[in-house]
């Protein structure tokens, strides 16, 4: 398995960014997905939503731009872009639940072949559970994408037949971007759209679920 290197997270973020249609309203989850913003040039006109109450979020604030009243969902100081708006939490989540956000991209512990998502709790005793907006995003956005490393630290696939971690949402993920492959979760099965430094047969063995290859 040591030969599998795939692509780095920057290259993966660029691939996700390229798939986001111009003018979309998008929520990027905390962690790996946040870096997608670095690959969305202004001329694409993608408007970022942050669930703590803002549409039109700009890049991370630096130096004199830092304003403690202007933060993102990860509580990092950010900036506002022309055309930005602020709203309270109930409106922010109504926006999400009401299907007005085109895409959200989340990190994950596991995604199942049916598109079930597990990303909020390890389920280990003593670990303090924290859900934040993950369940609302999974249930609400029109399309939920996942961006993650395909393998866990112990080398096991995080794309699984059934999630063993506590679920965030049922059948909500439509696409999974990983360092080794991009998967489409479709009613007929899991379709492999891209391969990065791995062949289809090796990937199928690694993942352990039936995969469909795009010809």
């Amino acid at each position, binding site marked *: 398995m040591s030969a599998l290197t795939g692509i780095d997270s920057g290259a993966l973020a660029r691939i996700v960014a390229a798939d986001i249609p111009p003018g979309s309203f998008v929520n990027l989850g905390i962690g790996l997905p946040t870096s997608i913003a670095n690959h969305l040039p202004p001329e694409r006109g993608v408007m970022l939503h942050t669930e*703590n109450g803002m549409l039109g979020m700009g890049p991370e604030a630096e130096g004199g731009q830092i304003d403690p009243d202007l933060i993102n969902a990860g509580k990092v100081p950010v900036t506002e872009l022309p055309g930005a708006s602020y709203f309270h939490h109930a409106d922010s989540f109504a926006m999400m639940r009401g299907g007005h956000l085109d895409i959200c991209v989340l990190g994950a512990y596991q995604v199942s072949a049916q598109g079930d998502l597990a990303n909020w709790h390890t389920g280990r005793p*003593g670990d303090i559970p924290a859900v934040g907006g993950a369940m609302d995003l999974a249930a609400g956005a029109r399309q939920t994408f996942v961006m993650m490393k395909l393998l866990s630290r112990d080398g096991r696939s995080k794309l699984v037949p059934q999630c063993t971690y506590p679920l965030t949402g*049922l059948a909500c993920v439509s696409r999974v971007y990983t360092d080794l492959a991009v998967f489409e979760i479709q009613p007929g099965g899991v379709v492999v759209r891209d391969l990065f430094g791995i062949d289809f047969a090796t990937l199928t063995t690694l993942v352990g679920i039936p995969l469909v290859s795009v010809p």
Partner: protein
Amino acid sequence: MSITAVENEQRREFIVSRVKILDSALEAVAGIGDGATVLVGGFGSAGQPVQLIEALVEGGARDLTVVSNNAGNGEFGLAALIREGRVRKVVCSFPRQSDSWHFDAAWRAGLIELELVPQGTLAERIRAAGAGIGAFFTRTGFGTALAEGKETRMIDGQGYLLEYPLRGDVALVAAHLADELGNLVYRKTARNFGPIMAAAARTTIVQVVQIVPVGALDPEHVITPCLYVDRIVRVERDLALSGETP
């Protein structure tokens, strides 16, 4: 026929303000008793009514149920209230953060109860309380561990959970400006839970950095209308206290 400036000036004399403007945060939180349910605004430290919470620590109320998005940051505000053992139960969406050590320790020691609620459901339950909604169905959380014990229904082929309103005895809110009637304006993402919490409690107590005369706020810009507000106190924007970087 439009109202002239002169007529408006005469009307100003007849304004009866129901809101109490208090001189200190300690006076503002007076009467919050043991066992109260307190809605606490803020997302992390943005919009957290730090001075009101510190006054609540000083006031000594115990066995509180706190409804807030997080469970305290560092040593100030909500974290201090938890550190001092005043909180019996926290209802929140995201207790665990890099600087939530007082909550973490209390929870691990079994000294504090946690009701974990998805963030949007938390907001909507608070909104429902203020809007007189008896309960609502949401897709959020359906089929997950947080759905346990909840009534479900299939609507148009999708699973929904029944969620109930979340009401407070008191709401502690930080806004940016208030007028002397209690109309409120917020600043940027510090608005977060302020407007919905202000509407969802029997008594709403607000800290602001400035109080302006009636008529000084553009009515188009008022976010929380004055009928939701009971008490106001002006506080200094103390960056050290709120843990913010100047």
